[in-house]
């Protein structure tokens, strides 16, 4: 009888599967991504390597010495004790991250624009207390520009009413405001000494959200040739909430990671972060194989570093607030080993 191995599901629950079952999960996961994403599945030797990773009973795993990559992240500086700056410092000194990201708890560019001077003051102090790069980040959050929070029409309400033209017009109006706000906040924090700017969950509100981000990146790159700009995505496919928006002649609705990366590169970003959402009903092995299959086409064409999002609910990691380290370390090693990523 085949021995069982402890592993995780996409919701974080601990289960036991045999090595053969894990192999089947890996093959099913890559096939699912290949079919939906119209990309090549992982090769057999890659699946063999993933099987060694996910069929291990080790509590923790890691990359080989010499294969270390850079860790970037969103939203550090959330204090357990003390204040924001102490939390950032602890992230440098105790967690030993490669970089940190100062942010506001309301992680949204339209929200942060109202308190920019306070964020600037915090960034200035952070730069004096930390040696590692301190970035600044938030989300484009296009939805916040729609009523009742914002001034534009609410396309989430207009679309079910079949008011398509009105919904598109509302998104286009919101885009203009979003670009202005993202550029304003980014430039303000750059002026305060930020080492880079992160636009996180780009495309969360669909293709208009993604286009606003690309336009903001373009403007910033034009004005600040030295600015580090990271664009992290929201999911493996850009939703066509508008449906007709293009960037440089390419329709944004439906873009998969390799298409997203090309747009982000063209706009002038310096790091691209694909995000592949976790299916909580499937195993971590299935989710990891699926995620790597989606992202693999990016690596040959990438001219800028690719930092796969491997965190809560993305990159194969369980969708759970306290992601189990056995799953996180396996997904991280899998991503680095198979994709030869620049970072996580």
């Amino acid at each position, binding site marked *: 009888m085949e021995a069982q191995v402890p592993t995780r599901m996409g919701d974080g629950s601990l289960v036991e599967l045999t090595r053969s079952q894990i192999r089947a999960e890996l093959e099913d996961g890559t096939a699912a991504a290949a079919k939906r994403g119209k990309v090549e599945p992982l090769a057999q030797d890659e699946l063999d390597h993933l099987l060694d990773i996910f069929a291990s009973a080790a509590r923790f795993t890691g990359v080989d*010495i*010499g294969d*270390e*990559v*850079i860790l*970037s992240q969103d939203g550090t500086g959330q204090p357990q004790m003390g204040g924001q700056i102490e939390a950032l410092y602890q992230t440098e*000194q105790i967690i*030993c991250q490669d*970089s940190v990201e100062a942010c506001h708890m309301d992680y949204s560019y339209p929200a942060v624009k109202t308190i920019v001077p306070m964020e600037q003051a915090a960034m200035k102090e952070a*730069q*004096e*207390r*930390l*040696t590692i*790069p*301190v*970035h600044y980040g938030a989300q484009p959050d296009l939805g916040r520009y729609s009523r009742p929070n914002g001034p534009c029409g609410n396309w989430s309400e207009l679309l079910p009413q079949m008011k398509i033209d009105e919904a598109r017009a509302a998104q286009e109006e919101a885009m203009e405001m979003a670009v202005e706000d993202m550029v304003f906040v980014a430039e303000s924090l*750059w002026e*305060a*000494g*930020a*080492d*880079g700017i992160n636009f996180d969950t780009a495309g969360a509100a669909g293709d208009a959200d993604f286009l606003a981000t690309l336009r903001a990146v373009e403007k910033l790159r034009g004005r600040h040739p*030295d*600015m*580090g700009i*990271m664009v992290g995505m929201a999911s493996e496919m850009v939703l066509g909430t508008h449906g007709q928006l293009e960037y440089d002649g390419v329709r944004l609705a439906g873009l998969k990671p390799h298409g997203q990366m090309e747009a982000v590169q063209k706009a002038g970003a*310096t*790091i691209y972060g694909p995000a592949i959402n976790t299916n909580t009903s499937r195993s971590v092995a299935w989710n990891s194989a699926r995620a790597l299959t989606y992202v693999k086409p990016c690596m040959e064409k*990438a*001219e*800028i*570093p690719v930092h796969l999002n491997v965190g809560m609910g993305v990159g194969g990691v369980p969708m759970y607030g306290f992601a189990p380290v056995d799953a996180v370390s396996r997904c991280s090693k899998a991503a680095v080993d198979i994709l030869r*990523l*620049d*970072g996580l």
Partner: protein
Amino acid sequence: MSKGMRIQEAKKYVAAKLGVTTRDLSDNLTMHELRGELRMGRIYEGETTYFDDPSPLEAKYHIAERLGISINSVNRFKRGLGIGG
């Protein structure tokens, strides 16, 4: 980040600038000693204090100079002192 270098290129670049091998970059003992010598900043540990270690801004200044990169906070600091940047 600002140069958009891929990881392998970045490791070679940094190793060359520091006069070490890319394998040395993975060795925290080697890098701890090297960062101390080059005044690039290192992790604080209560039982082995280095009171003379640089402040973060000084450390970043040395990092920028040694690696030949532009660090925004260092440039801002230098502008404040009236010494360029």
